[in-house]
């Protein structure tokens, strides 16, 4: 059996910025010396996976194109990461045989509003992302995704004044419904705050994988 590669699940409503977060997160993790692979779940389209292939593989050359895999689930994407994750597990099995030296598998899945969660069989760490345009009530409305995720990410903070969202209210409510658990405010368009998300992953998930200075320097040189 191939070595088990650590996995992070990234979930959240449609348009919250999951794909954008990954597009910013992979360069941040690469700068730290980590090598990643991405699985992107969607209902019928593979558009997000194709966009990431273009941005992260073809243009930025951060990973081979075949390490960004799109899955058209044919049903609610959250079903394929929770109720029946077998298609994702099959793809992970292939990846683990193809390149067991990878440090991290990122699994993206949308849908299901605040209730998205990942099967613990599939993901070792769970990031839930929402954006301020949904209103500053989002964290206090709770839901399994918001309450149980390891890291809550609140995106599009630059839009807050334009949509009447109070970030201090969101921070207060997130703390109240997720006692002791972290929340990060980010702007995935500019990358502001994404380095801190990468730090959380390094600390909370990749804690036994110290990256050598040599590999870190090589990653920085590109």
């Amino acid at each position, binding site marked *: 059996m191939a070595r*088990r590669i650590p996995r992070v699940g990234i979930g959240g409503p449609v348009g919250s910025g999951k794909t954008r977060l990954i597009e910013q997160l992979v360069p941040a993790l690469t700068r730290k010396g980590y090598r990643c692979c991405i699985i992107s779940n969607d209902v019928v389209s593979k558009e997000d996976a194709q966009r990431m292939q273009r941005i992260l593989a073809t243009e930025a050359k951060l990973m081979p194109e075949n390490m960004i895999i799109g899955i058209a689930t044919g049903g609610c994407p959250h079903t394929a990461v929770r109720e029946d994750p077998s298609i994702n597990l099959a793809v992970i099995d292939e990846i683990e045989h193809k390149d067991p030296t990878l440090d991290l598998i990122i699994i993206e899945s949308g849908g299901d509003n605040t209730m998205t969660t990942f099967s613990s069989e599939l993901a070792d760490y769970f990031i839930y992302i929402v954006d301020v345009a949904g209103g500053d009530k989002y964290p206090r409305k709770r839901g*399994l995704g918001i309450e*149980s995720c390891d890291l809550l990410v609140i995106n599009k903070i630059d839009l807050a004044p334009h949509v009447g969202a109070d970030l201090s209210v969101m921070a207060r409510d997130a703390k109240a419904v997720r006692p002791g658990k972290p929340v990060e405010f980010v702007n995935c368009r500019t990358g502001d705050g994404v380095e801190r998300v990468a730090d959380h992953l390094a*600390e909370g998930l990749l804690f036994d994988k110290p990256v050598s200075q040599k590999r870190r320097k090589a990653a920085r040189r590109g």
Partner: protein
Amino acid sequence: MLLVNGVAGNVFTNGRLGKKGHRAGLADGAERLIVSRSEMERLRLRRKTDRGTDIGLVLERGTRLHHGDILKVKEKFIVVEQMPEKVASVIMEERGKLEMVDMAALIGYTIGNRHRPISILQGKISFPIQNDSEIEVFEKLMPAGVRLDFSVQVFVPSRDVHDHA
């Protein structure tokens, strides 16, 4: 960080270690790693114990934590404790055989549609409640002759299923 790759036994099932666990006093003496039910299913987890020891847990495929597990570490005696949660227990009135079958099917339908794990122990069905606001819904949807009792306890599903409301 203390890297942990397995468990050495369980205070409830392992005689020798169990005695050690009881001597240490599971409830009030031993160092405890307190985790939620969903975290118990993880193979990779970083948490602090109640005494502040930083634990990085990496388990083998096919294994999982259980309430009362003793972490495999040389320096310390650390016991895994699952967080208690609100649980509903289904109390069914004694009725005729066919009526009982109908009731059981409707109870399964109601709980199953909300994708909750269940525990069936000596004819008693229990399931976790995520938020007090959903109690009203469950009480309304349960068939006639059924009432729900609520308590806070360590919930162990009969079979592993996902959570979803």
